């Protein structure tokens, strides 16, 4: 059950490129969080900006009752969090949202992360491992500074394939290239998981569609409340049994959706195409 709490910043590690690792004490999040879930959090009590912000739960420590975020300061809300002094106060509710679903038996989890989109996959890798499953991470960004959460994966023995647009680390170019390369190598059955910029998630969804693979994407629309009441976060989703797409709250029915049900902005809803995928997936 999600819980709302005033939380204190327990630890803060400033990384390169406006990234920061923040750890807060929040027993319910620490105990219950599942991969793909998020918190709504806000530093202090100033009314400008007024709202909390959604961040994926990167890691939890149930014993210390803490959770951690991997956060990029991009605007006023994230900057206020990134600038919190140790001990500083935040308001936080979580864990929220629908988590990633594990791949069906025998299917390998191929995780594709862009920038801070790596965040939900650390918990996911641990969940997979607890279930005795395996996975592989494709991690993309503009430059090496966008790929800062690598050790925790390799420490768990998960293979992590980096890709940067400027070639500063790993494959030069889009992260979908090494993904396709891997799939071309003819591995066993696979399930795709994507979290990152919209364009990347669409690309992964297309790969999945083309290859007839199931895929889950973690969307990040703007969110006002995180609990299904502001109706600001709605995305168009069309389930196979539905005659047309419906607005659904990304905060409660997502953020993780079956990629085949997502009506991407600007794309005509091709139900037939999606149906076909559903049938195969």
């Amino acid at each position, binding site marked *: *059950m*999600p*819980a*709302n709490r005033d939380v204190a910043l327990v630890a803060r590690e400033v990384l390169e490129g406006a990234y920061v690792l923040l750890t807060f004490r929040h027993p319910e999040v620490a105990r219950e969080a599942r991969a793909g879930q998020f918190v709504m959090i*806000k530093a202090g009590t100033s*009314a*400008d*900006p*007024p*709202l*909390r912000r959604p961040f994926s739960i990167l890691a939890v420590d149930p014993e210390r009752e803490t959770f951690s975020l991997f956060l990029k300061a991009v605007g006023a809300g994230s900057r206020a969090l990134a600038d919190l002094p140790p001990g500083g106060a935040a*308001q936080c*509710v979580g864990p929220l949202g629908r988590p990633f679903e594990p791949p069906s038996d025998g299917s390998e989890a191929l995780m594709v992360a862009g920038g801070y989109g790596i965040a939900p996959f650390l918990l996911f890798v641990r969940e997979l491992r607890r279930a005795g499953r395996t996975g592989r991470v494709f991690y993309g960004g503009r430059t090496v500074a966008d790929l800062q959460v690598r050790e925790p994966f390799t420490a768990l023995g998960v293979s992590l394939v980096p890709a940067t647009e400027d070639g500063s680390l790993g494959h030069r170019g889009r992260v979908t290239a090494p993904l396709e390369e891997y799939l071309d190598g003819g591995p066993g059955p696979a399930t795709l998981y994507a979290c990152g910029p919209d364009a990347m998630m669409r690309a992964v969804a297309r790969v999945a569609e083309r290859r007839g693979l199931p895929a889950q994407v973690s969307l990040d*629309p*703007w969110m*006002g*409340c995180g*609990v*299904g*009441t*502001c*109706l*600001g976060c*709605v*995305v168009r989703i069309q389930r196979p049994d539905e005659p047309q797409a*419906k*607005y659904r709250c990304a905060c*409660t029915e997502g953020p993780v959706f079956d990629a085949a049900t997502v009506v991407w902005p600007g794309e005509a809803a091709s139900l037939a195409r999606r149906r076909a995928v559903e049938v195969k997936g």
Partner: protein
Amino acid sequence: MSLAVEIAGVRLKNPLIAASGTFGYGVEYEGLLDLSLLGGIVSKGLYMEPRDGCPTPRIVETPSGLLNAIGLQGVGAPAFVRDVLPRLARYDTAVFVNVCGDTVEEYAEVARVLAGAPGVAGLEINISCPNVKKGGMAFGGDPRMTHEVVAAVRKATRLPVIPKLSPNVADVALFARVCEEAGADAVSCINTLLGLVVDVEARRPKLAFGTGGLSGPAIRPVAVRMAWQAARAVKIPVIGIGGVSSAQDALEFLIVGCRAVQIGTANFVEPGVYARVLAGLEDYLGRHGLDDVNAVVGTLRFPGEGAEAGSEG
């Protein structure tokens, strides 16, 4: 210490009500907070039919405020009665329904559907809906249309009728009086202020719909002023709304003459807001040696005036 208040014959265990459109149908908060903490809940706006709502973006933040154009996405009155009301019956809180309409007839029809349903404490009439027969002008911007809508709902039901005043008028007191004359049992004051935020890079409105309604702490001084004006103008109770997120904010509305207070945007910011505000109210009453929240209602001493009429409570 008593926090109970009475609005239009409905007893609320405390003066805090969740504002329409900011608390879903209430059930969304089931896991997060105890709904029985609340004096009341106003459902989001309901037409007869389900509605899809506006395209996105639907909400944009502004300095200390929120601009929204949700477009009244909702399940429609009949589905609300069927699916939601039974779930709310478990909680000890008054359930008000926010009634919408494209036409005067639709308002009355929604009111009739709800009048027959168990568990509805009263109807809040959202007169800020666009009037489709009059080219989309809001009912609540015109005294005659306001009267017509309120009178039609009044005729359709014996439930308490509570029109919700629009702030986009020159003289909110006039509209409060019109509602009182049309048979309203109370008024809610205020709905959102009409606003526009421009995406300067794209040179379009940031909201897909264009303009939107401004809410949140930013509007509180305007809302308190209007609630004060409305409370001086009518004998029926006024429910204050606009930017409340603390006990102090709620007290501002009570002191200027409101019997109860709605909390809107703050639900998004802080799901636990009710417990905090209630604790703050109790602390205030204690510090001021009062044992009944009604004792603060209408106690504003305005410069050059005597104290406003005290409460009857």
